[in-house]
């Protein structure tokens, strides 16, 4: 409801500005036929205030302000269109040549673009008009000649990214000339941002012309809004309407151009919309009303559901996940990308993306209720999770390059995190603790002063692990901790994690797409598919007798070094997309043993052995 209204209000700004531009165009085109006095006629009395005779009053020569406004619209639009058209054409031509041919041509042209970008347009326009005379053609040409580098730079970037596309390469391979490839295949596909920017250029052009006219450099024979303000300036005290109305007209038209450009930009740029997408969380639940936590496990997740709000609607990334983790136990969560395993980790610590929210389920962490029915449990407006973050449960994020702040030395990131949860601690104590965890994970202490980009990938990931261990948490959630690293380092780091887990009695959740990594480190494995845990069992059991066809497929895809050499079996078909709905089993479309039943009804969760369950109509043993 609220998001829909917001989308509407954004669209409202877009629609209103489009309407203003359309009205301006209509007025400009029909000005000669509108029932208005001659804009240059001096019949009326001068300085007549706005009234029934002259709606917006008359100026110092007795000319009708409304009529002049209408005729001024013509000039404003001509300037906007012609200048931005010339600038865009020059920009598109030079930008495409620069991007397409690269090498020396590009070096020369992009240097030229850089130089021209630095030249302040208005002063060059001023000089051109001062030297060549105040003719509208010169003004427009001058504006175009000073604004083309914007379009050129955009076009160059577009061409650079387009020229390696398959269809462009195909056209070249089929024998199309450079010119034809550019004109037919590249430029049309790269024009969208040029058009967006052209609307902004139009606003700029209108303002520039108005500024020139205001300085007395406008075309003397044309009716221009800037010129009207220039005339009105001297009569400000006796006839303020002379300058008020043309200013409002300018403001409305330029703002409309800018808002149109903005709206187009947003429509063409999904990145911007993604930033704006937000989910409204369920209202928090006071701790007094919440069912107390079940004593025992360090983590108890039951029927957790988490959804993302997207342009296209909602998708349920985590859909009814339940499991318990005892102190010191380790659980591997495995699945393909997009199965919801990372979302699960984020939901436990309540650090989801802004467009994600938990819609159902209970979570207890360290014997404290933090989520009830998808609502965050709070005590006096403070979330229960707030005091547990990093002290009870910490997280190791994937790709430490992005998970560590690039502009703060790693040591400072550690000490700040330490002092946050130990308010009394001195900087020295914090530094000592940071050094201690560095020792623990094998990062040289000298590295405390380094920035993330100065460390190797493996070192960065170790720093991330050190950060997670700062407060000796009971539970560490490691989200793909070794994905970005090469195999040797992966193995080292997993080994170190395993050792730490034993030494410190940590509970560990290892989220990974790699069955092998999980097998090495975890006692239990949960296999996730399309937001659900489809099979959960002790690691050995999973490897020895997988019950779910998906688990079997994952294991079959695992290459072996010791066994006979074979081609890993891939999994046919596309992963279930979380937006789809099906009455049956989500894996059925890709399942090699699916029956009619699988496609028509939800599979049950069946216990197939001690601590072993599978979400399947036909778990391996009972398959008919």
């Amino acid at each position, binding site marked *: 409801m609220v998001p829909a209204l*917001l989308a509407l*209000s954004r669209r409202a700004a877009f629609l209103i500005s489009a309407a203003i531009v359309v009205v301006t165009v209509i007025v400009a085109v029909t000005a000669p036929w509108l029932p208005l006095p001659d804009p240059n006629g001096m019949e009326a009395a001068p300085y007549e205030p706005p009234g029934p005779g002259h709606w917006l009053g008359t100026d110092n020569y007795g000319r009708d302000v409304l009529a002049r406004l209408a005729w001024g619209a013509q000039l404003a639009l001509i300037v906007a269109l012609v200048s931005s058209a010339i600038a865009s054409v020059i920009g598109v031509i030079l930008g495409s040549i620069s991007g397409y041919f690269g090498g020396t041509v590009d070096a020369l042209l992009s240097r030229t673009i850089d*130089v021209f*970008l*630095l*030249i*302040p*347009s*208005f*002063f*060059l326009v*001023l*000089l051109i008009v*001062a*030297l*060549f*005379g105040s003719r509208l053609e010169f003004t427009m040409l001058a504006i175009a000649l000073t604004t083309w580098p914007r379009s050129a730079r955009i076009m160059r970037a577009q061409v650079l990214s387009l020229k390696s596309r398959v269809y462009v390469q195909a056209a070249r391979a089929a024998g199309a000339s450079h010119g034809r490839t550019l004109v037919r295949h590249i430029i049309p596909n790269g024009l969208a941002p040029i058009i967006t920017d052209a609307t902004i250029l139009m606003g700029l052009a209108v*303002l520039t012309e*108005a*500024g020139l006219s*205001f*300085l*007395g450099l406008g075309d003397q024979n044309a009716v221009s809004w*800037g010129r009207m*303000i220039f005339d009105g*300036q001297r009569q*400000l*005290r006796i006839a303020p309407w002379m*300058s*008020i109305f*043309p*200013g409002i007209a*300018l*403001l409305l038209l*330029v*703002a409309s*151009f800018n*808002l149109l450009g903005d709206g187009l930009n947003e429509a063409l740029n999904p990145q911007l919309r993604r*930033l*704006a997408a*937000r989910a409204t969380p369920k209202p928090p639940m006071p701790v007094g009303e919440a069912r107390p936590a079940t004593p025992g496990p360090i983590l108890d997740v039951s029927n957790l559901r988490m959804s993302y709000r997207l342009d296209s609607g909602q998708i349920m990334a985590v859909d009814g996940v339940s499991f318990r983790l005892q102190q010191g136990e380790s659980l591997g969560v495995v699945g393909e990308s997009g199965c919801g395993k990372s979302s699960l980790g984020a939901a436990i610590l309540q*650090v989801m993306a*802004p467009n994600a929210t938990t819609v159902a389920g209970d979570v207890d962490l360290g014997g404290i209720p933090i989520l009830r029915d998808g609502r965050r449990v709070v005590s006096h407006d403070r979330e229960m999770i707030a*005091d547990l*973050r*990093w*002290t009870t449960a*910490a997280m190791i*994020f994937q*790709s430490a390059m*992005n*998970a*560590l*702040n*690039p*502009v703060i030395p790693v040591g400072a990131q550690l000490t700040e*995190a330490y002092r*946050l*949860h130990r308010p009394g601690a001195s900087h020295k104590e914090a530094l000592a603790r940071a050094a201690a965890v560095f020792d623990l994970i094998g990062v040289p202490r000298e590295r405390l002063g380094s920035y993330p980009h100065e460390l190797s990938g493996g070192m960065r990931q170790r720093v991330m692990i050190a*950060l997670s261990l700062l407060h000796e948490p009971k539970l560490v959630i490691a989200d793909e901790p070794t994905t970005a690293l090469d195999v040797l380092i992966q193995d080292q780091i997993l080994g170190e994690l395993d050792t730490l887990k034993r030494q410190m009695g940590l509970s560990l959740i290892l989220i990974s797409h790699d069955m092998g990594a999980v097998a090495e480190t975890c006692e239990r494995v949960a296999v996730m598919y399309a937001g659900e845990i489809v099979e959960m069992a002790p690691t050995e059991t999973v490897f020895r007798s997988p019950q779910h066809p998906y688990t079997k497929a994952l294991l079959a895809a695992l290459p072996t070094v010791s066994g006979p050499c074979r081609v890993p079996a891939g999994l046919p078909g596309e992963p279930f997309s979380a937006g789809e709905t099906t009455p049956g089993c989500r894996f059925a479309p890709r399942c090699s043993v699916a029956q009619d039943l699988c496609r028509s009804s939800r599979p049950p969760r069946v216990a197939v052995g001690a601590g072993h369950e599978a979400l399947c109509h036909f778990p391996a043993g009972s398959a008919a």
Partner: protein
Amino acid sequence: MNLRRYVVLRLLQLVPVTLVVIIINFLLVHLAPGDVSIILAGDTADPAYLAAIRERYGLDRPFLEQLWRYLVQVGSGDLGLSFRSREPVFAEIMSRVPATLLLVGTSLGLSVIIGTVIGTWIARRPGSTTDSVVSALAVGLFSVPVFWLGLMLVLFFAVQLQLFPAMGMSSVDGPREGPGRILDILHHMVLPVLALMTVSVGQYVRLARSAVAEVMGESYITTVRAIGFSDRTIMMHYALRNALLPVVTVLGLQLGLVLTGAVLTETVFSWPGLGRLIYDAILARDTPVIMGAFIAMSVTVAFASLVTDLVYAFLDPRVAL
């Protein structure tokens, strides 16, 4: 060591901009209708002065030699003579710099601070009603013609309410020195600074908003959320710090627009700075002054972009010097 090399390299990049600007100047004067000596000396020049100008620019020499002479002259800081005052243009420009610097510096500083604060504030919830409304208002602000806004401020605050003076930088009968003079100048500054600031503040609101919103989506922000830092600390300490980088970058590039605004604002308020000098030069068709101002403004903008690059390199450890 590395820093010095970087600065020198970056300084060298000023050369092509300056060259291009000087050549544009030269070509425009030669392409313009009318005799070059009259363009440079003015319609009313006496034959003796015309001859002097011809001699000075070597106007009877071959084209390329004229260009070379002009390059050398401008390169050595000689921007020619104003034909109204017959004073060197360079000195005229320099004498106007302090007033413009005061106006531009104050309004730029204020708009960057206010814009960044507002932009950061609305970036907390991108897509919210507040965000949509404030963002649209910001677009409205930088669509305002600054000279018109200046007039409206004069109309309201100077003519109607008579709170602030409408023109000049100081009162004719005001104190000549001491705190009284400073107060007098501050009093005169309010309206022009307000006009110039209002127009540029919108840019910084939008810049800071998109930069902060983007940073808030980064993984390292998720990390500090997971560590348990409060939203406020994350915003002020982490997001803003990283988001200031793009704001700084644009600061240099936008200076051209701010200077444009300054010229128009000074015209409205008769502020005795560069803008006023240019306006008077336009009225008198004093071409050498307009040409000199164009060169001066271009070099200033290029230099500002150099300074921003240096500040950026200083703020972002990832930029290897």
